[in-house]
């Protein structure tokens, strides 16, 4: 190489160096994709087995019927629907970090966006399983989609459940495209570092990206548009999920605050899940140089902010019930506070409203073990929140003769754990098969 930096001119041979040559960022990030160690295989085995157990239980439920699940009159929506809402919620912060923070030009998103986008795609996949599991006769799931039939009968577009079909499938498609397109230049880098079958695989996945000025121009434009489409989408999806409840007249569900309340809660729980995933990932894959404590502090502030919104919504809910003048509405909130499910309710208040307040302290925002534990508590709290909203409202509706309580059976618990197994299996596969940080964006920023 000549001293003026020009490596070759007037030549037509490809100017590639030895395979594996690359900048420090490339080497560091792609090192994470090397052959995994024993810990990785162990985790994969645990998560994969959990998933398999969940699948087996689903098969059991399909052969024996819905009686094996605890959902019955009056609580027809139990942990399956709780799981659905929980996983859709987890998905939300992925889009927030990749799309909304992109539009706001927040630099720290670079450390989290790839894992958050992956998390979004996997969480929506997990969420999508639950309506099918809940159906009982899961093989009739296609009845949910509007398709021309011999009977000329169409689906009911006035039903919030139909809106959900459209919202969640749109969300899955758009976040998958967003996840993929953000990765295309990085996949071309991975191609350079790999050999054999892997090279072919990544070459095809990268679509033959070469990084010409024309490609970058259209790429940037597309990225901007996808971010702009995803931002209203993310707000709409959890609003639609909340309307599954709020459009009904069930006391405890029928409130106008549900849409913003659910959206904030979704971003809150999703941000917690990002922290849960990225803290160990950063440590195990040795990415400390790229994901810094400052970045974690920024994301902890999002957690704190959304926690405050959620806390506010908890208070407003009581206000709405109090001023409604409806005995049923007031009754359900008394039941929530003092009834069968009160400990879940107190847990949700503790984990979602009180404990995150500690993030006002700067040193705690910058303490990774603390953040990790807090994020798990928040996830538990948010799960409890969905459970309390869904189950406690149904358990004590109008007529005392129709009251009842609900307890999940082992099948439901097993399928729930299986969904966690599926999600973490997918994430583990992601960390080894795809670049976990956006190499291109890190390079762009460091110049």
């Amino acid at each position, binding site marked *: 190489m000549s001293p003026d930096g020009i490596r070759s001119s007037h030549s037509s041979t490809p100017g590639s160096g030895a395979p594996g040559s690359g900048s420090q960022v490339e080497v560091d990030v792609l090192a994470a994709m090397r052959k995994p160690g024993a810990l990785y295989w162990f985790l994969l085995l645990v998560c994969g087995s959990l998933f398999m157990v969940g699948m087996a239980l689903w098969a059991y439920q399909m052969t024996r019927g819905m009686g094996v699940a605890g959902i019955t009159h009056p609580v027809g929506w139990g942990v399956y629907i709780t799981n659905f809402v929980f996983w859709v919620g987890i998905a939300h912060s992925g889009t927030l970090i990749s799309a909304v923070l992109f539009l706001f030009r927040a630099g720290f998103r670079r450390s989290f966006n790839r894992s958050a986008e992956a998390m979004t795609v996997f969480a929506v996949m997990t969420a999508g399983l639950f309506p099918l599991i809940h159906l009982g006769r899961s093989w009739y799931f296609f009845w949910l989609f509007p398709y021309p039939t011999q009977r000329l009968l169409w689906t009911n577009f006035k039903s919030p459940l139909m809106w959900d079909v459209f919202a969640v499938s749109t969300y899955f498609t758009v976040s998958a495209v967003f996840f993929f397109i953000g990765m295309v230049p990085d996949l071309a880098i991975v191609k*350079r570092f790999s050999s054999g079958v892997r090279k072919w695989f990544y070459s095809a996945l990268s679509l033959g990206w070469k990084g010409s000025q024309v490609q970058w121009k259209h790429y940037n434009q597309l990225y901007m548009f996808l971010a702009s489409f995803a931002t209203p989408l993310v707000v709409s999806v959890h609003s639609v999920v909340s309307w599954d409840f709020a459009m009904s007249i069930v006391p405890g569900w029928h409130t106008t605050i549900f849409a913003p309340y659910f959206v904030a809660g979704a971003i809150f729980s999703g941000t917690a899940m990002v922290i849960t995933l990225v803290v160990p990932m950063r440590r195990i894959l040795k990415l400390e140089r790229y994901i810094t404590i400052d970045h974690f502090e920024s994301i902890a502030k999002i957690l704190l902010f959304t926690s405050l919104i959620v806390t506010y919504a908890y208070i407003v809910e009581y206000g709405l019930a109090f001023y409604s003048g409806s005995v049923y509405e007031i009754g359900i909130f008394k039941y929530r506070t003092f009834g069968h499910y009160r400990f879940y309710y107190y847990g949700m208040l503790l984990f979602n409203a009180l404990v995150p307040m500690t993030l006002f302290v700067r040193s705690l925002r910058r303490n990774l073990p603390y953040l990790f534990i807090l994020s798990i508590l928040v996830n538990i709290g948010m799960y409890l929140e969905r459970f309390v909203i869904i189950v406690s409202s149904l358990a004590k509706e109008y007529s005392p003769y129709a009251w009842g309580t609900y307890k999940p059976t082992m099948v439901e618990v097993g399928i729930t754990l299986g969904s966690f197994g599926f999600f973490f299996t997918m994430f583990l596969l992601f960390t080894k098969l795809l670049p976990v940080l956006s190499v*291109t964006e890190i390079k762009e920023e460091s110049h």
Partner: protein
Amino acid sequence: MSERFVFERKEEFLEKLREIVRSGVPEKRITVLSPYPVHEVDEILPSAPSGVRVFALLGAVAGLVTGFVFTIYTVKVWPLISGGKPLVSIPAFLIIAFELAILFGSLLSFIGFLHFSRLPDVNRIVSSEEFENMFEIRIEAEER
């Protein structure tokens, strides 16, 4: 004869690019490859705004229209009152139309991107050429 310049540093690459443009080489013949988008290149080699935006608009409008036409058509073709609501319930159908606007808009933008940037590029996929961590200027040979 086609020429090829490869640089490790962005500043040198930009300097050379400016020099080439100043020396009167037509912009059509210049191809620039870079490991990440370089905004200065857009200033040196000005080009029309990306056509992806047209695709985005068309997709979004198509989705919105499809959403309304489809929902209204289905309630008209089998008029079954449900939930005591009017057959054509615009607020409810707006949600379907909104989601389809986003879905079609995103997908069509993606297709537009593939179209304009000539992807997937099969020749490139099978070739041994790599997406290097280098800045490269290629000048194509003049047509004779």
